């Protein structure tokens, strides 16, 4: 095919690919944060993950569940099996029925999912003015912008601009679509005392909890990046060798 036409075709493809995910943006563009897991060689920072878990546990889990997280998953972010057992033991979960047919409470085990604050969605709504705090297991995948979006929302609670009519029961947030979010600002400075001594500013807590939530949504990232590097290296070599072999075999005949 004519080379120029092919180049034009490829250029159109690239432009279309860039434009394709565009959706109506009603909020300003998200500020991009530097994440330890960004890029081809990105990995999760275990210290940030543990701080982020602390923020989730002490702040977010009051309203938000993360039903796809199990206590045993916490060994992936640097806790030992015993520490995980200890963390799990702090929670009570419903089990049963026992031999008398009753449901009963028992301390959670590592094999249990991390319990949410509410037994069902209806109770959650009733406790939050009709709004349902979304499950956070996949939140960075479920929102355009991922961890940048989570960080932006947590840092985006600004003073309501003059002339903006805020509905009863909502709060002004710069980055939330429509600017009226039902969640009250959850973070305040020094709200959490980090076990490793890091100063708990709002941006720091937002950064760590967004890192933690990205891990919660994509725990495979570290392994995926490592495997990807090896696979792609192998394939680059394979491409080279197969190309050379092809040229050699085809050199037997005029072409």
């Amino acid at each position: 095919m004519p080379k120029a036409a092919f180049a034009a075709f490829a250029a159109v493809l690239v432009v279309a690919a860039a434009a394709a995910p565009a959706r109506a943006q009603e909020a300003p563009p998200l500020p991009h944060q530097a994440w330890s897991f960004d890029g081809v060689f990105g990995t999760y920072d275990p210290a940030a993950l543990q701080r982020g878990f602390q923020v989730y546990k002490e702040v977010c889990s009051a309203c938000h569940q993360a039903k796809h997280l199990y206590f045993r998953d916490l060994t992936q972010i640097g806790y030992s099996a015993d520490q995980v057992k200890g963390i799990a033991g702090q929670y009570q979960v419903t089990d049963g029925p026992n031999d008398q047919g009753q449901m009963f409470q028992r301390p959670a085990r590592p094999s249990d999912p991390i319990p949410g604050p509410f037994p069902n969605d209806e109770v959650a709504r009733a406790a939050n003015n009709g709004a349902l705090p979304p499950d956070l297991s996949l939140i960075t995948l479920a929102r355009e912008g991922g961890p940048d979006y989570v960080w932006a929302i947590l840092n985006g609670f600004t003073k309501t601009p003059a002339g903006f009519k805020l509905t009863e029961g909502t709060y002004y947030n710069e980055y939330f679509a429509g600017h009226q979010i039902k969640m009250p600002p959850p973070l305040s400075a020094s709200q959490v005392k980090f076990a490793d001594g890091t100063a708990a500013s709002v941006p720091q807590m937002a950064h760590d909890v967004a890192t933690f939530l990205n891990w919660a949504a994509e725990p495979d990232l570290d392994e995926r990046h490592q495997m990807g590097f090896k696979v792609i290296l192998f394939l680059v070599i394979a491409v080279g060798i197969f190309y050379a072999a092809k040229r050699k075999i085809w050199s037997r005949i005029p072409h």
Partner: protein
Amino acid sequence: MAATSHGAPAGSPANDPAAGHSRLIRWIDYRLPFVSVLEHELIDYPTPRNLNYWWNFGSLAGIVLVIMIVTGVVLAMHYTPSADLAFDSVQRIMRDVNYGWLIRYIHMNGASMFFLIVYIHLFRGLYYGSYKYPRELLWMIGVVILLLMIATAFMGYVLPWGQMSYWAATVITNLFSAIPVVGQSIVTLLWGGFTVGNPTLNRFFSLHYLLPFIIVAVVGLHLIALHQHGSNNPLGIDKRGPQDTIPFHPYYTIKDMFGLSVFLLFFAIFVFYLPNAFVSPDNSIPANPMVTPTHIVPEWYLLPFYAILRSITFNFLGIPSKLLGVIASMGSIFILFLVPWLDTSPVRSARFRPVYRVVSFLLPIDVIALGYVGSQPPEGWVVALGQVATFYYYFHFLILMPVLGKWERPRPLPISIAAAVLEGNPSAFAAATPTEGH
């Protein structure tokens, strides 16, 4: 032929196709000729010597089909096709099943790769006239494969039971209600209820598992039809003799393996570093029949059809716009069946068609424009662009192809493939009267 019980002496290939192999192979082959058939169709098979890399995409599509089936069967061992458990079972695959994330990402991104490859394969056919005599049926079988792929992919996307899964299923199944009189009954039959729900999910899972094997069978027919007359080639002229062909092995086996390694590299970048590039964030939210996402968008490979569907915003001759949209959208695939007869050019390959050679690229550009339109909310100038692009799509097939074929003056064809490849003799090119392709 009187046969001794074992090991009749090796004859010539004419009466002993497995000549040159061990006794065991010859014994088997005499009863079930898998070795001799394999040799004839895949190893010794005479293939035009001038195929370029656009010819890699057929075998690539076959390999991706195998990848999809293997990963799909393994995923089905862990997936639960029930509305209350489907989403969670996919999360279990991603988090708990050994390498579950890898198998799922391969399957998910493989679907996109499959369509990308097949669209390129299709365009190759359009450009080089591979659909022309005697390959009309080969082309039509290919369009059948495309239809089966679209059905399979659509149902597959519903299975994770995310928001987009549920609502895309709702929108697309609702289209059938546009059919007069029986439309709503058909929709109820498809749903197995009054909305998309658990019965719908269960039957989509069953069909999603079944259809790929139907695709395999149709691909078999596609290959049988191909081998009747052999591959087309970039010059679009028939082979005249053995000097025009080379054995498939080792020349095209190694070339296909090289092409496969390049493809796998491209594929690996998505699987390992951009696994969710093709997916809507809304599908990471469990399906909620009470909440519609702001923008319902199908997967990228269905966007052009979606755009055509939405571009018919007016009624015509008493036919409601919804039905017209369905007809236009389905028609855009069905029109492909007619291409062998819509194109009136006496030559196959666009290489010898100076006007069509350039104009043919308007089609993929148009399809990409339609894809963009399908990805956006139908507001403002996007609607007009969609209508223009839909008009051009049909214009390209119904008017441009027939008219250009008759009006255009093709360039002189080379006298043979071998002559063109060897580029020896300028007088190897025939005089003005083209003799190939009718």
